[in-house]
């Protein structure tokens, strides 16, 4: 089981801030493919990965990051702090 968090327009497009999923995906990219296959709103949110960023256990990561031992994944657009 892994927690998936969504922020900003990714959260709005998918329609929820957080969910817990059962997955056998080995990498973030594989998890994204599983989510996209679920429903249109996921497919729409993940249509352009270059517009998205990912954090693995609260650290910025790449989409090819492994999921073994990971508790929390977050997807969001490029950050706009400051």
């Amino acid at each position, binding site marked *: 089981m892994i927690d998936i*968090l969504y*922020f*900003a*327009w990714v*959260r709005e497009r998918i329609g929820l801030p957080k969910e817990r999923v059962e997955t056998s995906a080995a990498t973030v990219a594989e998890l994204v493919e599983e989510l996209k296959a679920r429903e249109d709103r996921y497919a729409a949110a993940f249509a352009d990965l270059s517009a998205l960023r990912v*954090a693995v256990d*609260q*650290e*910025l990561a790449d989409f090819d990051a492994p999921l073994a031992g990971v508790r929390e994944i*977050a997807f*969001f*657009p*490029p*950050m*706009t*702090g*400051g």
Partner: protein
Amino acid sequence: MDIRVQSARFDFGAEAGTFAAGHTDAGAVVTFTGIVRRDGGLARMEIEHYPGMTERALEKIAAEAMARFALADCMIVHRHGPMEPGEMIMMVATAARHRADAFAAAEFLMDYLKSRAPFWKKEYDADGAAWVAARDEDEQALGRWSGG
């Protein structure tokens, strides 16, 4: 290293004054504050963040600044939640023996806060709401620190 993530307003002048008065051993203090601009018909702004990761990211950015520059100290205050035009969004302050370090560290902190801290701004005006797009310049600004 004073790091605060909060929805409450803060008093930039009081914070800057206290920080400077607390670093009279340093000689040079630089501050930056970002304000919700009163222009372009903006009615309000809302900043979303990633509780937990935000604090970690700011601690990491501040520690990196302390390691890279000859700093006596630095501070970051960053708000989230709803804000009106004219309100302060965030501030950084740096104290160093020489001004070059204080300036460089403040710019470094800002460049990382802009693109690497998990905050997302949404602007509301008469026509509706829109997420602020990341600026290419902000991503490019990070490049100048990668040689160090």
